[in-house]
């Protein structure tokens, strides 16, 4: 790395002027990328009077947490005025089982598809992989019918099922690419020692899978938490997830528009994924990259 950097540095002819321009540009872009988050945060701490008065980029003159309290506990969404807290828990109740189940299945699938190959394993994987990329509009109507028939419309359980099914392709992809690099010899010698299918998985592969489990869990968590289409299609009422509730709150046109409450709700909706990103950005990135197919 350092050799290459030196090559680049000498190529650039590191004049001081160049460095100033580069740092200047990078700083300007950083400011642009941060502005919407900054505006969201400052607006959520302002009173409505102050917002009407003016400068969207100014810091709050008299910071108040009232919009946050209202967004969480008493803002009106639809006909109820209990804030977004119920929907926040809906999302949490949906995301935890969906992530755990899809990750567990993905790990087993990846294990079979790399260490226990059978004829046609490539077609099976290819079909599961393509399933990641379909526009979900092409399964929306049948899914709505089937959920209705199973009695799972407008329920968190229904959303868990949906997210497990349509998350399987990605979780399988993650583990398949990871186990591909895992030495076959270890699996073979364990087999010679008489270890069975599950023993090998449990004792040999799983203990060294921590990095990919983290990547997979973060990826699935972000995707499922941020989903809107499935939520709005299959659970629009009391069991709606956070993203749907946020949209309903912001889009509602009754009464005075409370931008500060909207922004507080938006930050609350963004917080879980932002926290994960700040704590484990490296793994988040790896998941995104693998999602771009190349393992």
């Amino acid at each position, binding site marked *: 790395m350092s*050799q290459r950097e030196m090559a680049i540095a000498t190529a650039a002819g590191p004049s001081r002027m160049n460095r100033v321009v580069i740092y200047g540009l990078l700083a300007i872009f950083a400011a642009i990328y941060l502005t919407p988050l900054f505006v969201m945060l400052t607006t959520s701490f302002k009173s409505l009077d102050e917002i009407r008065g003016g400068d969207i980029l100014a810091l709050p003159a008299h910071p108040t947490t009232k919009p946050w309290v209202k967004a969480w506990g008493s803002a009106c969404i639809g006909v109820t005025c209990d804030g977004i807290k119920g929907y926040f828990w809906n999302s949490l109740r949906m995301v935890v089982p969906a992530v755990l189940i899809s990750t567990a299945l993905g790990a087993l699938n990846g294990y*079979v598809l790399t260490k226990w190959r059978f004829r046609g394993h490539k077609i099976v994987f290819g079909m599961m992989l393509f399933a990641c990329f379909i526009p979900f509009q092409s399964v929306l109507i049948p899914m709505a019918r089937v959920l209705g028939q199973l009695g799972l419309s407008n329920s968190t359980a229904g959303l868990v099922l949906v997210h497990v099914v349509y998350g399987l392709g990605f979780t399988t992809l993650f583990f398949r690419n990871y186990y591909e690099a895992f030495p076959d010899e270890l699996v073979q010698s364990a087999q010679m020692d008489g270890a069975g299918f599950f023993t090998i998985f449990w004792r040999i592969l799983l203990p060294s899978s921590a990095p990919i489990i983290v990547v997979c869990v973060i990826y699935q968590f972000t995707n499922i938490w941020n989903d809107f289409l499935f939520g709005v299609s299959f659970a629009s009422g009391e069991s709606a997830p956070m993203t749907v509730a946020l949209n309903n709150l912001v889009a509602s046109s009754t009464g005075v528009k409370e931008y500060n409450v909207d922004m507080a709700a938006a930050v609350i909706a963004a917080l879980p994924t932002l926290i994960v990103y700040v704590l484990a950005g490296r793994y988040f990135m790896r998941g995104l990259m693998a999602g771009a197919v190349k393992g």
Partner: protein
Amino acid sequence: MSVPYSGVRRGLQDWLPRLVLAPSFALVLIFVYGFIVWTAVLSMSKSRILPVYKWAGFDAYERLFSQPNWYMALKNLAIFGSLYITVCIALGLFLAILLDQKIRIEGVLRPIYLYPMALSFVVTGTAWKWFLNPGMGLQNTVRGWGFETFTFDWLVRPDMAIYTVAIAGIWQASGFVMAMFLAGLRGIDSEMLKAATVDGASTFTIYRRIVIPLLRPAFLSAVIVLAHMAIKSYDLVIALTGGGPGNATELPSTFMYSYTFTRSQMAVGSASAMIMLMGIAAIMVPYLYSELREDKR
């Protein structure tokens, strides 16, 4: 004795792997491929508010392609998609090259460019809707600074609203594209660059002639990922403009949803979903096929 890692053990052990994989594969077969066939059938039926399994041939497709709304959706997708892909790639590459110049605070800057990718499109849409709101957002603020005639009202102008969708989308995804290019740049052999430097090539020439051509795989991945995200974009439009003003920011995804669930034209909605699927398949199938062929094992 050597034991090949599949096919030797008899009985249950032999079938166990396939049994373990079977439920997942069955779910995918039913919920993905079965449902696609189901939607295809609906698109050739007379379904309106509820599914009706009466054959109507390509009637729904004919009706779909006689809808001005559908052409609006396609036109918007073309505008949004081409801007989204080209600007994300241009900006991503630019930032990646800047960051690759031995920047001391790279560790601070990279996450700043990338964090929007962690947000949901609904949050992004909500934030930009507020920021671009002509009455109280950016326009009002800049006017308050003394630029009385400053105008930025694209969000409420039917002819310009689609560009606000593009701006918000680019804000969200360009950092991700930057990361893809940065990974590509870090994989380039240093010896080659050194040799070029010794030969007296300028930085600009080195990037144009050597580095950028070497990034071809990253370009390809970026185009594929962005194109498929553009076709699937739904939440962002709903949260930012709601498809409006009027139908000014209609996209195929919003068209499908409103025709199916609010306008009771299920057959037409299904037909539009099938066209979307074909668009994605045209991009993804050749790509996935070549990716899977590469690793022969």
